[in-house]
């Protein structure tokens, strides 16, 4: 069940291929795992995240559903309660809202409501985030909605390796997981991914770069411009620590607080609208647990408080390396 078991063979995969590989791995290992959603079958998903699975596992395990998100998630609740492990795909995270009631009223609560008699192990996958010049509602980053709902876990990977390992963890998790995939970097780069099964634990952040001047917390697609900024600043002598949270619910409080205690300064980068985003939560955690270490305000580099724009404007909306660099510099110079 862990890295030890792998043959040691790796493949060089894109992030979306790692999704597919994770699904394939778990479907091969456990016949209760099924994939369902709009266009996930013959079409292989609009992003090809389920490519080839229908050919491999057939109609009963890779299921094209009618066009109804509440239907997809709501039937998945019944399936999970009956003993399957459904992995519903919602085509874009902006289309999860028709299923919002099922997610918050049932997926998140079935175990609690029935005191464990019924459980709801499922992974709701959806591509999230902006930057691909997509139509309206195709670019949102609203992880804060799900992180505010107890009973759910929320995972947002940023590398092919983590994606496969976290997806496998999510499928094996006894509780429901919202798995938000950074579609901007679905194909932006490749990474080494073990061919065998392995897991990356849910709820653990990872340090992408160690540093001592300032802690930069981010996740998902924003890891890229953040790393760009951090590396640029390293050349200018600013030694930033870059933490990829990977899971936004539960947040890895320990990793956040520990890094902050070391640096005393923090920048949080995400693409959600600033007000009410998890950047606020992270800030609150820091000052609750490490106020005495704090040497500068926590700087939130987020999306703006507007509906995600059509693509002519999206480059102004999304945090970029220049904005992040500026925030880090300000924080260090405070």
């Amino acid at each position: 069940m862990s890295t030890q078991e792998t043959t040691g063979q790796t493949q060089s995969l894109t992030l979306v291929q790692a999704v597919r590989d994770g699904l394939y791995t778990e479907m091969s290992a456990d016949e209760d795992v099924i994939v369902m959603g709009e266009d996930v079958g013959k079409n292989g998903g609009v992003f090809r995240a389920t490519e080839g699975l229908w050919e491999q596992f057939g109609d009963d395990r890779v299921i094209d559903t009618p066009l109804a998100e509440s239907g997809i998630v709501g039937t998945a609740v019944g399936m999970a309660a009956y003993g399957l492990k459904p992995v519903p795909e919602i085509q874009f995270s902006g289309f999860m809202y028709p299923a919002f009631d099922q997610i918050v009223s049932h997926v998140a609560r079935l175990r609690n409501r029935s005191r464990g008699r019924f459980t709801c192990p499922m992974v709701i996958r959806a591509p999230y985030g902006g930057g691909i010049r997509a139509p309206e509602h195709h670019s949102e980053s609203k992880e804060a909605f799900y992180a505010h709902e107890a009973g759910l876990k929320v995972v947002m990977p940023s590398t092919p390796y983590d994606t496969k390992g976290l997806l496998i963890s999510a499928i094996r998790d006894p509780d429901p997981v919202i798995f938000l995939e950074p579609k901007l970097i679905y194909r932006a780069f490749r990474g080494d991914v073990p061919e065998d099964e392995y897991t990356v634990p849910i709820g653990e952040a990872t340090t992408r770069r160690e540093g001592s001047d300032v802690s930069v917390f981010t996740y998902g697609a924003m890891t890229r411009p953040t790393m760009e900024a951090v590396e640029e600043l390293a050349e200018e002598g600013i030694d930033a620590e870059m933490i990829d949270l990977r899971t936004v619910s539960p947040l890895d409080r320990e990793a956040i607080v520990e890094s902050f205690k070391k640096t005393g300064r923090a920048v949080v980068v995400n693409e959600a609208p600033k007000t009410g985003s998890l950047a606020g939560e992270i800030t609150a955690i820091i000052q609750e647990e490490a106020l005495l270490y704090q040497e500068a305000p926590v700087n939130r580099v987020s999306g703006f408080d507007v509906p995600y724009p059509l693509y002519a404007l999206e480059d102004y909306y999304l945090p970029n390396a220049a904005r992040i660099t500026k925030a880090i510099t300000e924080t260090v110079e405070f």
Partner: protein
Amino acid sequence: MSVLERDPGDLVQVLDEDGAVVGELPDIGDETIVQMYRDMVLARHFDKRAVSLQRQGRMGTYPPLSGQEAAQIGSAHALGDDDWLFPSYREHGASFVRGIPLDQTLLYWMGHEAGNKVPDDVNVFPVAVPIATQTLHATGAAWAASLKGDTDTAMLCYFGDGATSEGDFHEALNFAGVFDTPSVFFCNNNQWAISVPREHQTASETIAQKATAYGFEGVQVDGMDPLAVYKVTREALEKATAAAPPDSGRRPTLIEAVQYRFGAHTTADDPSVYRDAEEVERWQAKDPIPRLESFCRDRGLLDDESIEAIDTDVTDRVAEAIESAESVARPLPEALFESVYETMPDRHHDQLAEIEALRAEHGDEVFFE
């Protein structure tokens, strides 16, 4: 011909309002019929006591079922061992038939999550408060049964007339139609969704005809006739578990059980604001309990003596259930965090500690003053 293959506006009846047989009897033993009578009497008595507990401040808001016993008891008795039940919040009678102890139902309405912890060997889903949402769970579970090859298992799902207006109802029936799930959708059309009458809920003449939209059969049944309800539900369950489609006609069914809620929507509701006493009286003439009683007396299945014995037994059992439920202590704070996740996360430990610190400092009273 199956009783399901008829015009959805053509009401299936077995007993008339006086309990006389006007339709073909279902294939059912006398013992079961008497058991159904007993269960209806129990449900009615339970209901009366529950309402009074609420009035006395011994229980929270409670949704009464009186008038709706036949629909619940008749359909629940039609279920096979492997079948599952997906209730809304009003089907205490049906849940009891399927094995949920009365004290657990009371506990639930007394605000204890424990009431929703359905016993392990009982396949009844927990109470669904958000209207119509359970129709999707039922479809999904039925679908899973079918995918797993459990061909003897069907899922019976209850919901109200009001529930048919929600999007989830539509999606659930549509999925069921597309995937031929072993589903029986059972609409307890009690004429009212709180204060909104059935005619205002939808312009469709019957609820049964809505099945047309999903490509399967809909049937209207007299929901205050326990034998008709049994019969229709049984046929629908058989259809749901028939050999695999397409050869066999294994298909879902929508049942509209026409009935009436005699009492308030919940104990927080005052129906006199929105409906006439006269209408209530008209429907009281269809009361399922005297109807089945008179049928049973005619057939020699019940007499004064056995009826009195049933009444006494039912009274005792409900009294015991109340005592048992009321003897359960208020849950401790850790119950708040129990089973939110399989494993309690760190922040839950911190939050529980916060409560415990306050309790240690001020005593438990500080939370309840």
